[in-house]
């Protein structure tokens, strides 16, 4: 458990340092995720001491968003003034993005499956 938590934090730290050093604008935690993924691919399995804290954190992911969400109160005035713009922008864009990406992913997936089937029959 402690080892696993330490490993997660080390990956994040490594990710943060690496991105600053390379001057790439990818946030540290995402870089850390990629580092850990590469590490797991090399190691060949997920060690038990990592699985426990990792799955615990992911299961309660939504709790971790609350402190930042409460921060919206700081912008109460701005939001009261522009609420329609914000709402329309978020709703329209999210709806269209969902439709486009779900449709695209399914189409591309089917095409790939058909192609690998065709290759298999040859």
């Amino acid at each position, binding site marked *: 458990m402690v080892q696993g938590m330490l490993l997660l934090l080390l990956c994040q730290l490594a990710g943060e340092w690496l991105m600053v050093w390379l001057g790439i604008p990818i946030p540290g935690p995402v870089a850390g*995720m990629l580092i850990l993924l590469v590490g797991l691919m090399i190691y060949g399995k997920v060690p038990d001491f990592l699985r426990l804290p990792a799955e615990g*954190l992911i299961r309660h992911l939504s709790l*971790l968003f609350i402190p930042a969400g409460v921060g919206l109160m700081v912008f109460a005035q701005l939001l009261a003034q*522009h609420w329609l713009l914000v709402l329309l922008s978020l709703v329209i864009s999210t*709806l269209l993005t*969902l439709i486009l*990406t779900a449709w695209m992913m399914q189409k*591309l997936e089917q095409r790939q499956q058909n192609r690998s089937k065709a290759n298999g029959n040859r």
Partner: protein
Amino acid sequence: MEIGNFWVYFAARPLFWIVVTMIAFLVATWINRKAGGTALLHPVFVSMLMIIGLLILTKTDYNTYFEGAQFIHFLLGPATVALAVPLYDHLARIRRLLLPILVTCITGSVFAAATALAVGIAMDGDSRLLLSLAPKSVTSPIAIGISEQIGGYPSLSAGLALLTGIIGCLAAPLVFKLLKLKSETAMGFSLGLSAHGFGTAYAMQTSALAGAFAGLAMGLTGVFSSLLLPLLVRLFGI
């Protein structure tokens, strides 16, 4: 001791606001379950409203609250790193679908920001507000970083990303029905791409496979948005 003094003592302790946040979340989760799990009463949304209400009632400012709540906020970092575990579990499938994943993700990341900006520009929005809207489909910790970089309000972006997450969970069942979508990978992927952590949590309820693809989409959208949004914003001339 006067009740006023008592309050001042406790409200100043970081521990108090951690406890408040966790209790609010448990109560909100319970309310959500009672209401049949509707995304309209998303536990995060309900907890936010309860905590904001309490802060206003007790005349506490956000900085005081965050002194305690930052310890919960901090865990977002290692939690994002931890997403490598479900990704690794589904690696074989991800490898097979690598090209569709990359094509959809790059298109989707740019499309999400571009449509949000287009609506904002059409309604003549103020440029800092628009810049804060751009990373709305990106998970909060990354949205904060992008917003900072392109000149928006970082904490507003984090909040708008949360609202996007809730909207995504509300819209997803309708969209999937409309498209007659059957593929769990496509469901998970589109959820993670457009509604980041909320979408991932929602997809996890469908299946572990959908959840893994949602986590993948969330991570990749974060990566591509960090790289592409600064360019896109320049293209829009904001």
